């Protein structure tokens, strides 16, 4: 449709956040294509008028392809990304997996290996967090508590109910997921602030309960979790759990990726962008949020339970800690919540930065200051995380390579098209602002 004119006055897209939703933004409009010029087949609408809601059946109206036959990914990324992009991604993925899996044999001593387990644990936790944080934009500071519940659940099922370790782990994760339903019900019924408050309150109340209910949880005396493989020497123990955590990470990433490309995921992202609007378009936002919260809680509990089996000692103050939750947030935000590998990258970046602070400032609580300042900087200046920032940088350096995860922007598209496109400026009328006073 060459006749469809290009918007002429370039909107202010130079800044990182052009926010053209503001009514003051330059008002340009495409020239309306004449109805006659459109091929009738492409016109939606008339066909749907036959029944009351034909589209609601989800059946293709033209085209005979049955569901699943000729499906295309929903997002436009695919449209912009070429075969090369796929290959690059596949190679990167294989390299990453190889690096992760070969680490145990490269680790020079058990300490390094155990540190690797901790890293993986954090990667799983922040990826699990990202099910809620990344998709819906609801920020939970209480995921540490869900991990703690998973840990205690697993431990108690092993010690009190006598279940085998990994059965206990699965049951505990399931129980936490079930428990997440009423928690989510209270937290997600109203918007925004209440969710954060509940997530913090969850940590605080669970800390109180697990500390006080000493007859069950051992209270401040702690709870010892029996080793699942009692015969293993400590280095072997680390190795086994390293692979278990790696497997769990893979599972969490896979689940995230599957949701990311599903209709469910699109609905969740719509919630993140504009919840009212999503609701008005027919998305059952509350149910969506609740489901994804439960999924997130389940994965978090799995990570927490696996950690308990690995670590062996549980103490309420360490299991139910707000800082744990906040570090997950920091990792995910820094890495980029919109990206599959964002939390993973964030865990590494945050880790190194804070180790630096710890080394630099020694035995003072200044690492807290560093954490606070880093979090504030990310929130103020890099709310999208480093991955997009790097992506943008790479784009700037290497031109508009579309292997980037990012969708192509209108500005880029426009540039590509400028050569041929006829510019016909539509003057912006004085009353471009939607003033409500106008009668």
């Amino acid at each position, binding site marked *: 449709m060459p006749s469809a004119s290009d918007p002429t006055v370039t909107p202010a897209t130079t800044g990182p956040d052009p926010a053209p939703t503001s009514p003051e933004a330059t008002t340009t409009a495409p020239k309306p294509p004449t109805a006659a010029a459109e091929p009738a087949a492409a016109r939606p609408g008339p066909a749907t008028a036959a029944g009351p809601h034909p589209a609601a059946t989800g059946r293709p109206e033209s085209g005979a392809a049955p569901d699943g036959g000729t499906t295309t990914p929903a997002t436009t990324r695919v449209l912009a990304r070429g075969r090369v992009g796929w290959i690059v991604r596949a190679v990167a993925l294989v390299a990453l997996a190889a690096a992760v899996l070969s680490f145990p044999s490269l680790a020079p001593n058990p300490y390094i290996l155990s540190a690797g387990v901790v890293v993986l644990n954090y990667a799983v936790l922040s990826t699990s967090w990202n099910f809620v944080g990344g998709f819906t934009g609801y920020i939970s500071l209480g995921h540490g508590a869900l991990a703690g519940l998973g840990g205690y659940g697993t431990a108690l099922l092993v010690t009190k109910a006598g279940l085998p370790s990994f059965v206990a782990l699965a049951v505990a994760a399931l129980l936490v997921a079930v428990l997440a339903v009423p928690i989510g019900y209270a937290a997600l019924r*109203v918007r925004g602030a209440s969710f954060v408050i509940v997530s913090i*309150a969850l940590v605080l109340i669970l800390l*109180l309960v697990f500390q006080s209910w000493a007859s069950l949880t051992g209270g401040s005396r702690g709870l010892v979790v029996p080793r699942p493989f009692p015969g293993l020497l400590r280095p072997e123990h680390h190795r086994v759990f390293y692979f278990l955590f790696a497997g769990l990470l893979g599972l969490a990433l896979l689940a995230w990726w599957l949701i990311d490309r599903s209709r469910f995921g699109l609905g969740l992202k719509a919630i993140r962008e504009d919840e009212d609007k999503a609701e008005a378009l027919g998305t059952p936002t509350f149910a969506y949020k609740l489901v994804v919260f439960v999924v997130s809680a389940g994965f978090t509990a799995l990570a927490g339970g696996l950690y308990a089996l690995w670590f062996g000692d549980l103490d309420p103050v360490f299991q139910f800690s707000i800082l744990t939750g906040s570090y997950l947030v920091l990792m995910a935000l820094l890495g980029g919540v919109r990206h599959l590998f964002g939390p993973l990258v964030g865990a590494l970046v945050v880790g190194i930065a804070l180790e630096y602070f710890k080394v630099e400032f020694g035995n003072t609580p200044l690492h807290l200051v560093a954490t606070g300042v*880093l979090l*504030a900087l990310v929130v103020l200046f890099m709310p999208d995380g480093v991955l997009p920032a790097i992506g943008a940088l790479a784009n700037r350096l290497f031109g508009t390579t579309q292997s980037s995860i990012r969708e192509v922007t209108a500005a880029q598209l426009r540039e590509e098209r400028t050569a041929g496109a006829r510019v016909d400026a539509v003057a912006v009328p004085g009353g471009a602002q939607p003033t409500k006073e106008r009668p």
Partner: protein
Amino acid sequence: MPSGALLFQSVILGLLLGGLYALLAAGLTLYFGIMRVVMIAHSAFLILAAYLAWWSHTRLGVDPLLSMVVTVPLFFGAGVLLQRLLLARLRAATLTMMSVLLTFAIAVTIEGLLGYAFTGTQRRIQLGYGSASFGLFGARIAVVKLIAFGLAAVALLTLYLLMKKTTFGWALRATIQHRDAARLVGIETEKVAGYGFGIGLATAAVGGTALALDTTIYPSLHWHWIGPLMAIIVVGGLGSVPGAAMAAMVLGMAQSLLQIPLGTTWAQTIFYLALFATLAFRPQGFFGGRLAQRF
């Protein structure tokens, strides 16, 4: 069965505690009303003020109450700057979530700096009248607790008069109720929001001084306060100052009385149970407040 004397004593203690909760929750409510911000750092500033009171007493030999001459204006200024320089920068679309993180970051930073300056050791002001008390119908009221309550009451009353009787209070209430409408009638809402934040933080300065009089302080103590305070503002109805004050008194009293049969730890859970119950059954809160529904 607890004796009548113990019950009465607990009621008195609950009242004194509730007063402090009320003052602190009022500040927290103010922020939420003005900007829809859950100010996690409120209690960190509270502890900061307590430390300043302790420091001026221990190092300078000044009565802790006098430290307010400095801390109240200081905190007011800090509040204005905090709102104008940091919170106002956040995008409106993600304000609620990001402001939580930002204020969380501030809280952690304050905690770290306090730990750096004063170490993690628990501190307590040693006053000559620290263990003095007087009797009231068989109950005993500690002088320091009464002073703390008095401070909270005076500060709350001042806040009330400020909100109800002054032009600024009118502008502030208008901003809280409908920002756009307030702007339309010529209120400089940005400026008002900044001052509102300043007032909120000033209440933390008063509260911190009151707190320092009778309890131990340490850098991470703020986590101990923020939970109950958040519960209070939700139960009271987000954004409603009188609602928060009511909820604070009720929950403070409940905590004090529940300690008799349940002990300290379990009694604290009343705040969170009230929070969950409120959100599940009456999200708009129990004491007025109509902002919660939409945010």
